[in-house]
């Protein structure tokens, strides 16, 4: 059971090894990666930032809740911070369990909770050079100072609630 915020590329195979144990019959590795497009716009990269202390606390809580709810100590999550390019992994979740149904459910629980409550933010870079904070709730996101081409009314970024 472990959670970490990391500045270096994530190692999915390492996390898979970390949760492996002879009592387990199933392991699930979930990898979230930067997509080349979002909401119809071509994306070239993403900056991930966090309220690090609180994000760590929330991630620790989530893996603890998953371990209790699904009765396995083999739950590990790592979230990357910094600037990522398309295809790079932003989050890896590894779960192992004696039974596969619980492994799937625990993995799903961790990613859904992470997206709901961990204070991490992302700013997408677009092909036109602009950058915008992503707001999965769909309300207006205002352009950052680097984003001079837009008015302060910005544009609605409905983002993805489902990536």
């Amino acid at each position, binding site marked *: 059971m472990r959670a970490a915020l990391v500045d270096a590329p994530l190692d999915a195979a390492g996390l898979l090894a970390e949760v492996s144990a002879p009592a387990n019959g199933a392991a699930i590795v979930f990898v979230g990666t930067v997509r080349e497009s979002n909401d119809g716009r071509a994306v070239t990269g993403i900056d991930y930032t*966090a*309220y690090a202390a609180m994000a760590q606390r929330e991630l620790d809580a989530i893996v603890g809740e998953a371990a209790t709810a699904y009765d396995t100590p083999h739950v590990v999550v790592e*979230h990357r911070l910094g600037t990522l390019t398309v295809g790079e992994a*932003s989050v890896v979740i590894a779960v192992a369990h004696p039974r596969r149904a619980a492994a799937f459910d625990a993995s799903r629980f961790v990613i859904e909770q992470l997206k709901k409550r961990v*204070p991490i933010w992302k700013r997408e870079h677009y092909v036109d050079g602009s950058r915008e*904070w992503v707001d999965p709730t769909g309300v207006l996101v*205002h352009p950052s100072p680097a984003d001079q081409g837009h008015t*302060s009314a910005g544009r609605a970024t409905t983002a993805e609630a489902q990536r």
Partner: protein
Amino acid sequence: MNVTVLLFASYADALGTTELEIALPAGSTVADAVRRVATLPGADRVPPKPLVAVNERYAAPEQRLAPGDQLALIPPVAGG
């Protein structure tokens, strides 16, 4: 009493800083602190009722603050 206010992501861009100190009357709540922040330049780009954490935990608007508390205004999260 003084409390620290942490700002992140779009809220930090809006107010042009990641951290500030505000002075509040004793007995003030999270909602009081948020109303104070709303008077600052650029705060028109922060919603009137943002998510707030106090000392790294999500907090309700009516929660009372203590001197030295660390308040954080939390933009919509987008991890994963």
